[in-house]
């Protein structure tokens, strides 16, 4: 890490090289997701488009040509709609994308906006038949009198064409806004969660879904809590977790009852009475929940912290990481400019040893669970040239000791927020969405998982 010369302790094995700097047509990226092998990376944006990147096969000779991501396909997933009954516009913004595990040559992904989930098939075509008997090369019907002999059409190679087609549309099942979708480990079902309900679907059946969680009170005036995220367990197809705006997590077992309103486990950290303020509840609202790859832990993100929970311990989190504690004294201002309602996502690395989440000023943070070290990095064109090593950043609290290149809390740009991040399932490659830019960083020094 040659460029970094200051005394800030850095993680030795974390020399990241930015690969490329993709500008996705000035639209704000709203979701980022690697597929199960990491070969494909999908992004959704506010305009309802999905862009899929594919990793180039690695060159064996030159180490630096190791798989870079290039655009593979772009398609319009959702269009804006109008709900005539409620006189409300339904945004086309893609809230979530989830890949299905690959089962044949084609790839499948689910994409959702506020109301409708769609299953897309992404397939390649690199051959086409030539030598038809009844049609000529342009497709015109031949004059039958000119046909003197029979020929067998042959498949000839052609330029690679990526075809994307909608295979299923799962509509009209959500009154409220869909915030999560999660594919089950049985590869047959998936769930979609909105603010008050969670539905279970079969991937082949679009006209029916089962409601498995319903927290809507009889009287809407009694509503005090909404569902903020939900996910299936990576191995146990009967278990799923959902988080709430009050900072609780509920693990549910679908074998117990058809309607999983009664949780199997409730994960909640008791509130610290000395830290109570008017904003306590808002900052405790969980914005994202992710199972670890092992299925043993849960990672949650609330406004100021990221927490790792052990599924076997409901009383408190195993680990709590302060993402940007310097904002704790600024909560009132952040409340006024609505930043306090921002929903940050979080991610595990492939071995569940490092967690990552975004922050403001295009900063994102990584925490090593084993060494307890953390780093703040910036995703911006100014601070990272292609192939340059990212320099760790530091935010100093007001009045704290200030070093060179430190950013003070007051000069943070709160419009530059990293809400969406994704980590390659096996390698140290991360995708960071900074407003309308996508950054992909690779760890060159130690590409294989340690």
């Amino acid at each position, binding site marked *: 890490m040659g460029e970094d010369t200051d005394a800030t302790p850095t993680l030795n094995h974390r020399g990241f090289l930015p690969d490329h700097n993709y500008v996705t047509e000035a639209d704000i990226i709203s979701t980022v997701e690697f597929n199960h092998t990491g070969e494909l990376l999908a992004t959704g944006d506010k305009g309802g488009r999905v862009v899929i990147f594919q990793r180039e096969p690695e060159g064996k000779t030159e180490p630096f040509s190791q798989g870079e991501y290039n655009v593979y396909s772009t398609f319009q997933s959702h269009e804006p709609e109008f709900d005539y*009954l409620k006189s409300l516009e339904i945004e086309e913004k893609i809230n979530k994308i989830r890949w299905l595990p690959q089962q044949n040559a084609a790839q499948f992904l689910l994409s959702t906006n506020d109301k409708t989930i769609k299953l897309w098939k992404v397939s390649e075509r690199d051959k086409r038949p030539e030598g038809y008997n009844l049609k000529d090369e342009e497709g015109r019907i031949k004059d039958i009198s000119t046909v003197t002999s029979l020929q067998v059409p042959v498949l000839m190679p052609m330029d690679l064409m990526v075809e994307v087609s909608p295979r299923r549309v799962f509509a009209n099942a959500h*009154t409220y806004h869909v915030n999560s979708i999660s594919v089950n480990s049985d590869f047959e079902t998936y769930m979609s969660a909105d603010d008050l309900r969670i539905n279970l679907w079969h991937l082949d059946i679009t006209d029916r879904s089962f409601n498995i969680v319903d927290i809507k009170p009889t009287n*809407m005036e009694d*509503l005090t809590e909404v569902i*903020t995220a939900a996910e299936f367990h990576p191995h146990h197809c009967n278990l799923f977790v959902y988080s709430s705006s009050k900072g609780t997590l509920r693990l549910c077992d679908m074998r117990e009852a058809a309607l999983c309103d009664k949780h199997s486990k409730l994960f909640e950290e008791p509130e610290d009475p*000395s830290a109570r303020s*008017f904003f306590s509840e808002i900052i405790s609202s969980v914005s994202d929940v992710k199972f670890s790859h092992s299925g043993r832990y849960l990672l949650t993100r609330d406004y100021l912290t990221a927490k790792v929970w052990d599924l076997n311990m409901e009383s408190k989190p195993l680990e709590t990481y302060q993402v940007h504690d310097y904002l704790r004294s600024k909560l009132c201002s952040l409340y006024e400019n609505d930043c306090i309602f921002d929903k940050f996502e979080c991610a595990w690395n492939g071995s569940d040893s490092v967690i990552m989440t975004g922050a403001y000023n295009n900063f994102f943070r990584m925490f090593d669970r084993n060494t307890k070290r953390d780093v703040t990095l910036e995703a911006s064109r100014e601070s990272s040239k292609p192939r340059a090593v990212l320099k760790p950043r530091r935010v100093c609290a007001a009045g704290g000791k200030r070093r060179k290149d430190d950013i003070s809390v007051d000069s943070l740009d709160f419009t530059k927020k990293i809400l969406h991040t994704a980590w390659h399932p096996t390698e140290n490659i991360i995708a960071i969405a900074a407003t309308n830019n996508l950054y992909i960083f690779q760890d060159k020094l130690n590409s294989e998982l340690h």
Partner: protein
Amino acid sequence: MLGRGVKRKWSCLEELEAEAAPAAVTEEKQQQQQQRAEGEEDGGEDEGGLPAAPPKSETSHLQQRQLVLGLCLEKLQHYQAGVELSLRRSVLLVNTLRQIQEDMRSDGPGTCVHPDSCLLRGDLRRDMPVTCPGCAEGVGGHLPLSSPPEFPPQEADGSHDPQKSLPAAAAATATATATISAFSDAVNAMGYLGDLALDDIFEDIDTSMYETSDLPSAWPTGSPWPVGVSLWADEDVKLRAAGHGSSSGSLQSCLLDLNELDHIMEILVQS
């Protein structure tokens, strides 16, 4: 119709943040309340029961509470104006409002910190009797004293107990006088607002925001939530006011006329 709140300056916010350390505030507030409980005799109206100058953190806690209250309502107003708030955000805002209300209630019934707060108590909790002795003085007439833009001119009270609920209309001069004096007392009771000229409190209020047209027609139809939140209890208030008016003989009219409200405002400002 909910009007616009007073816009706070950034520097004001930062001031409050610098002062308001939650831990310190909570502790000192508890001490403060203990002192008050020991010192006061009949509610916060008795000047002798209150310390001459409340400690800074207590002040800033109240200031912050007021600020957050204003912001909360402003944000919820956006919803009413047709910009759809996400359900999550609406829930968090209303929960914050409820928390502020709890906090105000824990101040004790005697301390009417701000005339707005009395209205807030009545507005948010339908089953809570809105008897704010500091403001109403047992007259039974409660005027929305500062006619804050955040609240409708009518008193919004969903109390099930008609005897305890305060009627929406209070046009009688006697009532106005009583409430004026009550308000002055309340102002004196508020240490940190005592030095403010009354004009300053009212000058930002834009009464042109008031509309007498039906509120529900302005709402997006079928909006999922909140549909019946008592924050928008105007419809109900008008109906209830009609009921009260017929039973209370001393009241001139059932609905508070805007002209009368303006008139009363002038009285208050000039006093």
